[in-house]
Structures are given as C-alpha cells and as structure tokens.
C-alpha cells in the first residue's frame, strides 16, 4: 500500500518518498537513499556557496567545495547525534513515540545542533583544505572577522534548518503511522462487524433450508427469501455505519429471528416488545443483532428443548433501555468462543457514540427459566 497516495505533494513530498520507497522497491535503492538523506544538505550547501562566492568574490567551485564539506560534516554530526540520542532515549523509555520515530527531543538536539555547527564548520574546513591541497589563507580563517562571523552564522542557520527538517520529518512519520494504524483498526472493525453479521454458519444453514423449501413449499420459500433479502440489505447498510429507527431495528431483529425460526421450528419462541412511543426513536443500526445472535447461538441452539427469546425496549427516565433475554443454557454453560467479539463490538459502538453515558451489561436472568439477559442503556437523545 502506498500511504502517500492522495497526499498533497507539497506538504508530504519528503514523507511520501521516504515511506513509499520503504514499501515499493526503488530501482536504485542506494542512490535513492543517498538522495533522500542528502538533498537538504546538498541544496543548502549550494545556496551557501552561491551566496558566499557572490558576496566575497571567491571562485565558485572552491567555495562550493568548502560549503559542501562543512554542510555534509554538519549533517553527519546531526544525524549521528539524532541516531544515538534517540537510541539512548528509547533504551530509557521503550516505546516512546518520538524516539521510535528517531527524534531524541529538542532538549538534546538543541545544544547538539550548536556543537555540530561549530565542530562541523572547523572539521569541514580542514577537510576541504586537505582536498584542495591549499592551506588556509584568507578563507575560512582570514583576517576578515566579519566574513568569518557571516560564515559561522550561515553554518549555524544551515544546522538549525537541517535539524528542523529532520524533526518535522520524524514528527510527520509518527503522525502518519498513528493515522494509518487508526484507519487500519477502523477498517478491521468494519470488516469484522460485517463478517460477524454475515455469519457463514447461519447463512449456509438458511440457504440449505431455502433449498429444501423451494422444492416442497415454494410459498414459504419465497417468504423466507424476502426475510433473507431484508436482513442482508440491512447488514450491508449497517456495516457502513449509521442509525435507523427502533421500529426498523425491531423489524430487522424480526427478520433474523424469522430465519432462525424456520430452522429451529418449535424449539424457538419469539417475543418482541416495542412501545409505540419509541418506534421513531433513532438507534445505531443493528446494534442488537450481535446480542440476539449470541442468545440464539450460545443460549438456545445448544439447548435440546430450545426456548424463548425476548427483545424489549423501554424508557427509563433519560435513558433508553434495550434488552435481549433468552431462556437458554446460561452464561456458565455457554461455550465462550465467539461470544466475546459480538459483545465487544456492541460496547465499542456504544462507547464511540455515547462515551460513558451508555453501557452494556450481561447477566444470568434471575428467574426460574434461566438463561441470559443482555441490557443496553443509552441516553434518550438522538444518536448521531
């Protein structure tokens, strides 16, 4: 996946290249890497050389060699300071997001930038001297203190901009990684939601029943198919999130239970209770679906005699209370695999929409029929 896709090129170009090349093998990996790492140093050195050679009327090539040596030495120092500084910080504080993105923090990088500028300046000058084979005359240690200070200021300016560039690059990488992780989680959750609602076992069993009914009772087959269509349509719509009225919610629960009833026959009794004044109230779409499915799958299906399921809505002051209750095998006897995901998903949706003001509780039903009751409480205010 190319994460830079669609990002504005001006803001993210550095980022885009860095990350995209990590994912997509470049044709010249070493050259690409060198260019990526050195382009800021190279371009600043070039600007500095042009500036100085014009200002002091020095030969351009000579100035360029000096500024390149100085610029690249400074960059080398900054980069190693950044590398060792962040490694040290990561050791003391594993998982620190800044340090993970190779940024040790301004506390360390500020002073280090000044040190890098001074050492880089003198070290780079010596290197350039050696390269040119000429010992310093008027440049860089000429008698002209004015020129020296200008050049020192320039290298300091270069250093700070390089450090700033590296810093923002690191920060953008961190932000990008966080955004990506969040997006991935959201996509995963949506997929899982869809997958849990289109539970293959339920789907194929329903189709198996349909296949039989088509031969024996076409009219009933048609009615069952209509229920299945409504259920699938609602599921696909709900996976794109959104809300609908409680009347719709109950209609979808009814569709689902009708499909299950064809399969379970007399083993399933259904009771839906939605007060007229709550019919138009908006709720997150198919919020109850995982709860109803858990009741069927983990409560009633494993029970030899089956049982009943009751879905109710009521108002309790400022709260809307929705409950799904079954007379199944109960929490203690339920086989836990799979139940948790449905519950977690309902909790997450409630938390996203209402924060602390909504809750989902699950407990053994207190009466002689046994089974489990799941209760959702949420504010009466209209859901987003």
């Amino acid at each position, binding site marked *: 996946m190319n994460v830079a896709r669609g990002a504005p090129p001006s803001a993210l170009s550095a980022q885009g290249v860095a990350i995209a090349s990590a994912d997509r093998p470049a044709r010249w990996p070493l050259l690409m890497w060198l260019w990526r790492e050195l382009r800021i140093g190279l371009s600043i050195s070039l600007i500095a050389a042009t500036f100085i050679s014009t200002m002091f009327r020095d030969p351009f090539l000579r100035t360029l060699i000096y500024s390149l040596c100085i610029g690249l030495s400074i960059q080398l120092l900054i980069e190693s300071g950044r590398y060792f500084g962040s490694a040290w910080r990561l050791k003391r504080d594993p998982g620190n997001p800044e340090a993970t993105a190779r940024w040790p923090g301004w506390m360390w990088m500020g002073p280090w930038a000044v040190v890098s500028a001074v050492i880089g300046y003198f070290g780079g000058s010596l290197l350039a001297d050696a390269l040119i084979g000429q010992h310093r005359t008027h440049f860089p240690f000429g008698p002209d203190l004015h020129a020296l200070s200008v050049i020192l200021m320039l290298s300091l300016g270069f250093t700070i901009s390089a450090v700033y560039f590296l810093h923002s690059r690191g920060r953008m990488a961190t932000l990008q990684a966080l955004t990506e992780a969040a997006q991935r989680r959201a996509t995963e959750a949506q997929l899982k939601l869809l997958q849990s609602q289109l539970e*293959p*076992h339920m*789907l*194929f*069993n329903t*189709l*198996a*029943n*349909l*296949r*039989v*009914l088509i*031969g*024996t009772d076409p009219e009933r087959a048609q009615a069952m198919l209509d229920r299945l269509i409504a259920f699938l349509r609602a599921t696909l719509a709900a996976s794109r999130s959104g809300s609908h009225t409680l009347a719709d919610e109950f209609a979808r629960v009814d569709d689902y239970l009708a499909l299950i009833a*064809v*399969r*379970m*026959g007399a*083993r399933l009794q259904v009771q839906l209770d939605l007060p007229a004044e709550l019919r138009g109230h908006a709720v997150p779409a198919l919020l109850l679906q995982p709860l109803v499915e858990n009741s069927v799958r983990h409560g009633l*299906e*494993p*029970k*030899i005699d*089956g049982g009943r399921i009751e879905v109710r809505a009521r108002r309790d002051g400022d709260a809307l209370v929705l409950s799904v209750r079954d007379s199944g095998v109960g929490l*203690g*006897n339920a*086989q836990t*695999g799979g139940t948790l995901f449905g519950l977690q998903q309902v909790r997450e949706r409630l938390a996203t929409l209402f924060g602390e003001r909504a809750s989902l509780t699950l407990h053994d039903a207190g009466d002689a029929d046994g089974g489990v009751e799941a209760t959702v409480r949420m504010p009466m205010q209209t859901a987003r």
Partner: protein
Amino acid sequence: MTPRALIAEDEALLQQALRADLRALWPELQVVAAVGDGEQALAEALRLRPEVCFLDIRMPGRSGLEVAQALAEDWPADEPFPLLVFVTAYDQYALQAFEAQAVDYLVKPLQRERLAASVQRLRARLAQRASSGPAPQTIEQLRALLASVAPAPAAERLEVIQAGAGHTVHLVPIDDVVYFEAADKYLRVVTPEREHLIRMSLRELLPRLDPAKFWQVHRGTVVRARSIASAQRHESGKVSLKLRERPETLTASRLYAHLFKGH
C-alpha cells in the same frame, strides 16, 4: 442384508430433505432413526447399531464430533463400527480436519451430485468393511480428527482449583489432583484423600492443564500421568489403569490406548 442408517440433524427441514434424498439415491438404505440432538444420536446409535451415521456437527446436546468420539469409545468390540458421515454448514476448522483425515463429510446446502458420490463411496466401503469393532485405522482417523479440532492450549495454566462446598471454599493445588472425571454438568476432582465437585466442563478445563502432566484417557477422564501405577490392555482395545494413590481402577478408551505402548 439391508444397510441401516441413523440421521442426526437438529433442523427438521434439513432432516426430512436428507431422508428424501437418500431414499432417491439409495433406495435399499433403511433410515432406522432420525434424531435432533447429540444425546439421542449417541443413545440411538448404540441401541440400534446402524451401519451408517450421518452426524450434523453443530447440534444441541453433543456436537457431531463428540458423538463420534463417544461411539468410538463405547461401541461394542464384537460389532462392526458404523461408517460416519459428518454434515456441516460451515466449520472452517472441522472441514480442514476432515479433508486432512479423509473423513467423509457433506456440506449444507447438500447438493445432489455430492451426496450421490458420497453414497457410492459408502456402499463400496460397506461391502468390504471389517466385521468387528472399530477398525484400527478408523480409531487412528478419529484420534487425529479430535486432536486437530481440539481447542488450542490456553495461555493461563490452572494452578489452584476452587471447589465450593456449602459456605466453605476448598483450594486444591493442581498437583494434588489424581484425576478429573466428568459427571453431568459437573467435574469430579479427585485427590488422594477426598473428592470435590466443581462446575466446569472437561472441555473448559483441558486447555488449562499441562498436557505433559495430565493425560486425557477417556472423553470423560483426565488423569495425572504420575499417578498411574500400571496399565493393562484388554481384548476390546480398552486399557485398565491402576493408580498409586487411589484404590479405584480407571479405564482408558480405545482412542487413548496408544498412550500405553509398553515397550
């Protein structure tokens, strides 16, 4: 001899359909029992001794796999073991295991051609099958099948068992336990001195035990290996286990007899 079959399928429509399809594809097959849950499936199969059993995987009471395990353990040694065909709508892991173990299975919705192929294979195998007990390769097949669908070991090992009795809770260190035995909805936890009842199924317990220390020897029994003094093999394929700290004898079923090789 007319072959007889048992159908275990909890959904009435699917049960009827399978019957009808079998009637068309295998007219001489006599369906002697059609049941809707695992308990009945086991009881009826043991009572009627059919030649073929169609077992739905997800059924109330016992799953089809659990029925198969119980049949392998309880089937009389002098009777030919039934051919098993598992039926499932969608069980990813079970299907992989069936495929790997070359076990007969059908997927729902049942398709005529697939069922016809299955019927043909069953007929061929009925014609040449062994005359008594579960054949060694059937046992091998079932053992591998059960192992591959067993839940993965839990990260958290059980160290101490809490067994309530009235107002007292007894804490039983796991190393004190000689064996566990399933008893209806409970589990008997037997130590050298006494026994406790806990509300837990063997299925929940097993992943939390160290498989090197505790061996399952029967669908309802898990015993601490260190506590086994001797094992005696029987003609039937079962093995009697004498214990060090307890007077009673435990039975290891055919499915677990391979644990006691004796060389």
